[in-house]
């Protein structure tokens, strides 16, 4: 069915206007970042020449090279760590019988709904007591914990879709539980793990509150959003174009990954909905 011409016109108009509105804010700071100093026209018309000077200033003044690296380290560590522990636990939930199984699953639901504000204060003192404040661990360990809920429930759904006949075939061949996990369940579920990893990567990369609270003093481990926030807030630097350049620099990695993997991002979010 393709509706009437009027309906098609309305539909495409809405979509085009929506897409423009969605992309404009980011586009406007890209333009601002490329605008040389003399030409600040208020952001509605394009500048006549572009410059990369603002990016150079932002990069050297803001230490974003280090910040982007920190973000990468933390995100990869969380994705790997969370995926690993989640698939181990999910395997148990899916294939084994044990007491209190549904209870433990219910306990995991707490993590899905718990706002970080509810745990950030004790987390600060806990990590301080462990001597881990202002290190990468301060960001990695809690975020693995907060990813466990989503991770276990996600992998449980993925593993539940593995045909039991495959597992039986493997055990007939003499495989034990451990090797069945790695040889049967894991390979089949790789797409699901890929999507989970993509989602966790996004959430971890963008996490701001945890970084602000747990690594406030050590620029060497501050992640990109935090470094950007400090940079933008520092009033020595009130040239909006330099701030815009910094923001674009921080956004680029995720935007680039998104452009390549957007199907995964989107299917991750929507598959979560179907599950619920």
């Amino acid at each position: 069915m393709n509706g009437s011409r009027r309906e098609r016109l309305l539909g495409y108009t809405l979509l085009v206007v929506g897409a423009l509105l969605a992309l404009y804010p980011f586009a406007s700071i890209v333009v601002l970042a490329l605008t040389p100093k003399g030409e600040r026209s208020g952001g509605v018309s394009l500048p006549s020449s572009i410059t990369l000077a603002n990016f150079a200033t932002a990069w050297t003044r803001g230490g974003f090279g280090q910040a982007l690296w920190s973000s990468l380290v933390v995100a990869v560590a969380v994705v790997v760590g969370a995926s690993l522990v989640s698939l181990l636990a999910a395997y148990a939930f899916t294939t084994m019988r044990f007491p209190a199984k549904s209870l433990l699953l219910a306990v995991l639901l707490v993590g899905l709904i718990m706002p970080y504000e509810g745990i950030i204060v004790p987390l600060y003192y806990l990590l301080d007591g462990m001597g881990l404040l202002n290190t990468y661990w301060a960001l990695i360990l809690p975020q693995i914990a907060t990813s466990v809920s989503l991770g276990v429930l996600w992998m449980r759904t993925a593993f539940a879709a593995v045909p039991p006949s495959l597992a039986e075939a493997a055990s007939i061949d003499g495989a034990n539980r451990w090797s069945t996990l790695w040889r049967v369940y894991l390979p089949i579920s790789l797409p699901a793990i890929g999507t989970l990893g993509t989602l966790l990567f996004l959430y971890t990369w963008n996490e701001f509150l945890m970084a602000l609270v747990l690594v406030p003093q050590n620029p060497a481990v501050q992640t990109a959003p935090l470094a950007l926030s400090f940079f933008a807030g520092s009033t020595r630097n009130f040239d909006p174009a330099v701030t815009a350049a910094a923001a674009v620099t921080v956004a680029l990695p995720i935007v680039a990954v998104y452009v390549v993997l957007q199907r995964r991002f989107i299917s991750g979010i929507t598959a979560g909905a179907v599950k619920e």
Partner: protein
Amino acid sequence: MRIREPAGPTRRRRYDWGAYLYLVPAFAFYVVFLLRPVVESVWIAFFDWDGISASTWVGNANFADVLGSQQIWQAAGHSMVFIVFYALVPTVLALVFIGVIARIRVRGLAFFRAALFVPYILSTVVVAIAWRWIFAESGPLNTALRSIGLGGLARTWLGDFDTALPSVGVIGTWVMFGLAFVLFVSGLQAIPAELFEAARIDGAGPFREFFAVTLPALRGEIQVALVLMITAALRNFDIVWNTTSGGPGTSTTVPSYFIYREAFVTHHVGRASAIAVALTVLIIAVVATVMRLTREPGGGAR
């Protein structure tokens, strides 16, 4: 009627005690860095503590203080306003979009979907910087208004008592719309074509079709969208921190902002914990309500 098992050696299911080994890594992280802190949050709220020296037990005093604090109620009120902007408006807008495009076949839907989802994947700090520019005194919004002769409307949107709260709200609508849209599109695509054909044969026009077929089919997606968006509205630390810091005056304060300030700036850690507990309870209550309101009607014929 209950069936009684015959007396005698009862059949016992074999348990995989080794399962717990598989559970330990995940639950170790979970308990140490999430569950225990949840409990500790409640515990700390019973004390008056500056985070450094010894603490003193004050029982319910922090909770009473928080629940009686005009400042906190005002912040909670702002959060309610944000629910409108972050959850209700995007949901309604997205449903309108869905209602329209359900009638047509859209070429390049994947592109539109990807474009509309961009706001949701950007870091909140980047979003804040982009919108601070747009709302700036000499930024694109004011420039555009001035150029079409509406210069009288131009102002520092984020610095004006009347417009700061709605301006932050608009940012939220912009971020969340894409999430709702993407969720609803996937739900739309799952609706079997026969349902639409049946409606058409019955002579249903676009509105009837929307309310009879599309909307009910999206119930699950609406539920998920609302839960995610309302949670974001009630938390909303990042955007407020990076745009208005709760100002001007106290016109854009939110509870999570006070949690941070009380814990780490003014050093009333007990009070901060009390606010955190109250906020968490509020979020759980609202989410539970939403799930209740949007659950399957009756026994669910699906």
